[in-house]
C-alpha cells in the first residue's frame, strides 16, 4: 500500500508541475500587466512602471522563459511571488484561505449531509410526493448557474428585510466588528453568513441528492438487504445500516472532489456576496492582469485536485472493505 501510494504521489507531483507551468506560460503570454498602469492621470513615468514590473517579475518585455525561471525558482522554495501591487502572495493566500474556510466549512458539511439524506429518502419513497418534488427541484437548481441562485436569494432577502438590515447581503462582517469574536460579532457574522451558505447548500443538495438517489435505488433491490430484513432487522435499521452505508460509498469520491475543489473556487458565491476569499482572487487576478496571482491560483487548484484524488482513494479504501491494494 505504501509503495503504491508513493508511486501515485510521484505521478501526481509531475502532473501538478506541468499544469502549473502551463498555467504560468498561458497567463504570462496572454495577460498584459502594463495595462494596469496605463491611462493614469497624471501619466506615470515609463521608467518607473518598468521598474515596478521588473520588481514583481511581470515585465512583458522580459522573455517569458526568463520570467518563468525566476518564478519557478521562487515557487520551489515556497514563495508564490508578489502581486502587481507588491504584496506578498503567500500572506494574501493565508488570509483568503481563512475566509474561504470560514464560509465553506459549515456549508459543505451541511450540504453533503442534507444531499445524501434527501437523495436516500427520495429513493426509499420512490415516486411519492417527496421524491417527485425533490427530483424536479434539483433539476431546476442544477439548470441554474450558481450566481443566479445567489442573486435570486439576494432579491428575496431584500424583500424579506423590508428596509431593515436583518439579513446582510454583502461582506463577511460589518466594519466595526473586524477582528472581534465576541457574541455580538458572532451574531453579525452569522447574519452575513446566512445567504452565501444557503446558496452553497441549495446547489450541493441538488447535486448530491441526484447521485445518492440513483445509488440508493440500486441498493434497495439488493439481496443483502432482503437478508437483513429476513434475519429480523427492522426496516429502518436495515435501510440505514445495510442500505445507506453501501449506497453512500459510490458517492464518496464525488463528495470529496466537490468539497475540496470548493476551496479553490466558490467563485460565484464569493463574488456575489462580496467575500474576499480564494474564489474572488481567481476572477480578480485575471481581471487585474496579475500574472503571478493567476499562476498561484493555478498551482493551488492543481494541488487541490490531486489532493482530492488522493483523499478520495484513501477514504474509499478505508470505507470499502473490498478495496485493499497490497
Amino acid at each position, binding site marked *: 500500500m505504501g509503495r503504491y501510494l508513493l508511486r501515485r504521489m510521484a505521478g501526481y507531483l509531475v*502532473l501538478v508541475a506541468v499544469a502549473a507551468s502551463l498555467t504560468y506560460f498561458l497567463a504570462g503570454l496572454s495577460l498584459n500587466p502594463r495595462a494596469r498602469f496605463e491611462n493614469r492621470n497624471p501619466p506615470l513615468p515609463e521608467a518607473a512602471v518598468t521598474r515596478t514590473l521588473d520588481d514583481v517579475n511581470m515585465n512583458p518585455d522580459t522573455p517569458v522563459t526568463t520570467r518563468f525561471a525566476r518564478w519557478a525558482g521562487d515557487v520551489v522554495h515556497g514563495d508564490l511571488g508578489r502581486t502587481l501591487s507588491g504584496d506578498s502572495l503567500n500572506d494574501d493566500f493565508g488570509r483568503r484561505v481563512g475566509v474561504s474556510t470560514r464560509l465553506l466549512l459549515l456549508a459543505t458539511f451541511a450540504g453533503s449531509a442534507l444531499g445524501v439524506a434527501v437523495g436516500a429518502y427520495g429513493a426509499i419513497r420512490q415516486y411519492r410526493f417527496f421524491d417527485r418534488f425533490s427530483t424536479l427541484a434539483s433539476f431546476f437548481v442544477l439548470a441554474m448557474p450558481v450566481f443566479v441562485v445567489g*442573486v435570486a436569494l439576494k432579491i428575496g432577502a431584500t424583500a424579506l428585510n423590508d428596509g431593515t438590515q436583518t439579513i446582510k447581503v454583502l461582506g463577511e462582517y460589518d466594519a466595526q466588528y473586524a477582528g472581534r469574536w465576541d457574541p455580538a460579532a458572532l451574531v453579525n457574522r452569522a447574519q452575513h453568513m446566512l445567504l452565501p451558505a444557503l446558496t452553497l447548500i441549495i446547489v450541493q443538495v441538488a447535486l448530491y441528492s441526484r447521485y445518492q438517489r440513483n445509488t440508493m*435505488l440500486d441498493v434497495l433491490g439488493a439481496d443483502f438487504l432482503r437478508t437483513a430484513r429476513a434475519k429480523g432487522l427492522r426496516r429502518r435499521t436495515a435501510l440505514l445500516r445495510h442500505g445507506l452505508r453501501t449506497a453512500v460509498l459510490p458517492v464518496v469520491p464525488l463528495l470529496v472532489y466537490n468539497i475540496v475543489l470548493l476551496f479553490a473556487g466558490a467563485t460565484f458565491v464569493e463574488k456575489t456576496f462580496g467575500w474576499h476569499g480564494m474564489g474572488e482572487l481567481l476572477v480578480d487576478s485575471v481581471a487585474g492582469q496579475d500574472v503571478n496571482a493567476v499562476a498561484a491560483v493555478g498551482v493551488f487548484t492543481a494541488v487541490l485536485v490531486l489532493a482530492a484524488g488522493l483523499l478520495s482513494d484513501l477514504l474509499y479504501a478505508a470505507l470499502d472493505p473490498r478495496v485493499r491494494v497490497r
Partner: protein
Amino acid sequence: MRPAAGGRGPWPGRTSWSGRPPRAGRPPRAGRPPRDGRTPRDRHPSPPGRPPHDHHPSRTRLTARRFARNRLATAGLALLVLLFLAAYVGPLLSPWDHRTHDFLNFLSGPSAEHWWGTTQSGLDLYALTLRGLQKSLVIGILVGVVSTFLSAVVGAFAGYFGGWTDRVLTGAVDLLLVMPAFLVVAVLSPLVRGSGWPVFVVLLAAFSWMITGRVVRSVTLTLKEREYVKAARYMGVPGPVIVFRHILPNMASLLIIDAVIQAGAAVIGESGLSYFGFGVQPPDVSLGTVIADNTNMAASYPWLFFFPAGCLVLIGVSLAFVGDGLRDALDPDAAGAQARAKGRGKRAAEEGRRR
C-alpha cells in the same frame, strides 16, 4: 427442411430447429421480411377497428416512441422548440430593437410599451433578452456538438490504437483535467477578444471534452474486441476508417446524450464566464452579459434579473429533460431507466396487493 424463411428459427442466424445446419448456399437472413413483397403487416393484419400495428419498427422509430412516452422529455422538447421560436420569431413581434435606447424610459417596469421593462440606459429588456437567448442557444448547441466530437475522436483513437497514441492522449486528458478550466478560459479570453463569439465557442469546447473522452476510450476498449471490428481489421481496413465507420457509430447513443448534456453545461458555463466579463464581448449579447450588466440593480429592479435569468433556467431545464429522456429512450438498460421500470413494476404489485 427449411422453414418459410424470415427468422423463425431457434435464434437469429439459425433457421432450423432440427439441429442440422441449414442448406448450403446463401443463408436466409434472419429478421428480414421475406422477399415475396408481403410485409409482416400484410401477414398479420390488425383486427378491424384497431390502428395498424407496426411489427418491425426501426430503431429510430422505437427510440422516438420511447421518448414520446416520457412526459418530462416531451415537455422539455416542446419547451426547447418554444425557446427557439421565442429567440428567432419573438423579436419580430416587438417594435424595439436590442440596440435602440429609449431616452424617455430609464429603468421603467414592464408595461404595454416595454413588455419586460427597460434597463438603466433605456434598452428594451425584451429585445435584449431575446437577442441574448439567440446567442446562448447557439453557443450551447455548438459547444455541445464540438466538444462531443472532440471527445469522440480523442477517446476512440486513444482506445483503438493504444500504445503511445493512448499514452499521449490520456496524458493530455489528465493534464487538462488538473488545470482549472474556468481559470484557463478566463486567462485566454484577452487573446481572443475582438475575434467574436465563434472563437469563444472553440475555447469553451476545448476545455469541456475530457471526461467524456475518458468514457469513450473505455467503451472503445470493449468495442475493439467485437467480431465486426476484428473482421474489418483482418480485411485490411485502415484504423482511422474503422474508428469512424465501426466504432463511433456503435456508441452513437452515448454521444448523442452527451452532446445534449454538454450543451446544457455550456450554456451555464458561458453565462458564468460572461458574468465576469470573460465570455461574450460587446457588441455581442448573451444571457450571461444581460444578467451581468444588470445585476447591481437586481435588488431594486427585480425584473432586470428575473426575465433573463428565467430564460437561462428554461434552457437548462429543457436540455436536462431532453437529455434524460434520450438516455432512457436510447439506452433502456441504463440504471435510471431500469430503476424506473422496476419502480413501475413494484408500484403495480403494490396496487395489486391493495386491491
